[in-house]
């Protein structure tokens, strides 16, 4: 294959692996140098944030998936939603609840369907950033528009507790 490989067919204790080529000391050390450098190049806070993300594992809540996004061309063509005033419209759907969102110039407005009073939590990766009460027909407004990645958790009577997937506007 190439001259970097050494063969050690007689090395003891290798069994069936005896025919495999093994890297020479110099190749192994060069690979070790690269492995160590690649890890050192990553900022500690980048790694830290990745570890923190695990706090979201197995949240005991019904997940609402993104089923409509006006920024997707296919959705825009098939749209029956009126979105003249909005920059972007999104719909999240779960078995018991649908959450419709519209991004306007100043705020993020939403409605839960079926219409009912609900409590909306704005979650960012670092925790709950805001808690918002909807009106009687499930309308709510988030201000200012979240700048980073976020998700909404909606709670309503009858044990309804629904979490959207992550959103970045």
């Amino acid at each position, binding site marked *: 294959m190439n001259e970097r490989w050494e063969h050690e067919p007689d090395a003891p204790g290798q069994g069936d692996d005896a025919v495999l080529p093994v890297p020479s000391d110099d190749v192994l050390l*060069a690979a070790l140098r*690269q*492995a160590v450098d690649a890890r050192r190049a990553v900022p500690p806070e*980048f790694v830290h944030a990745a570890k923190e993300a695990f706090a979201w*594992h197995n949240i005991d809540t019904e997940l609402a998936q993104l089923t409509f996004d006006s920024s997707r061309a296919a959705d825009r063509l098939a749209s029956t939603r009126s979105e003249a005033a909005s920059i972007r419209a999104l719909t999240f759907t779960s078995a018991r609840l649908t959450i419709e969102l519209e991004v306007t110039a100043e705020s993020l407005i939403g409605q839960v369907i079926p219409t009912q009073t609900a409590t909306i939590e704005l979650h960012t990766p670092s925790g709950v950033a805001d808690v918002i009460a909807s009106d009687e027909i499930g309308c709510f407004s988030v201000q200012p528009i979240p700048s980073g990645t976020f998700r909404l958790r909606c709670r309503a009577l009858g044990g309804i507790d629904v979490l959207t997937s992550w959103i970045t506007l």
Partner: protein
Amino acid sequence: MMRDDPQIIALVARASSGDQVAWNELVERYAPLVWSICLRYQQLSRQDIDDVGQSVWLLLVENIGKLREPAALPGWLATTTQRECIRVLRAAARHHDHGSLPSPDEMPADPDAVAIDNDVLAAERDAAIRAALAELPRGCRDLLLMLVSDPPRSYADISAALNMRVGSIGPTRARCLERMRRSPHLAAIIDSPSWGISVEHARGDRGE
């Protein structure tokens, strides 16, 4: 193709069942992969890269129990990272000009698919090597880390730091590398074509 690495399969299974230690280990192994792919999208700011990283790991948290092939996790991370990089770049372009699509010269340059494949192979190999290093006896680990330190250190320097005769550094180096070569972590990659490719890759375009 990489042989299915039983270590990754076990880590994914443990993380899926809620084990934070296993999750941290996966992050330690593959954060360099996510990072290196982000760097290929040169239009991304540091803040953008943090956003991409956050999205990628949050998506993995949500999907880790549903991965069809846990051993293919590095490939999944590479694909997801690319998709998130493009999404962040498109969102930035939209903010400049509400609603309309970015013009072709504003669209992200799509990094070479071969380059990304090489990133995945290099990341798998690097992760296995670091895992093998971590399980070596303390003395071996210290010596090998000094031998690859940047800037390089002289044998006299290493001798003083580790309280070891200069004449025994060479033989100890050989013995420690031999232990490393026998590590089960390396078994999954030692006969993989990634080895040759990635070392070339490391000496070629990594240094730019």
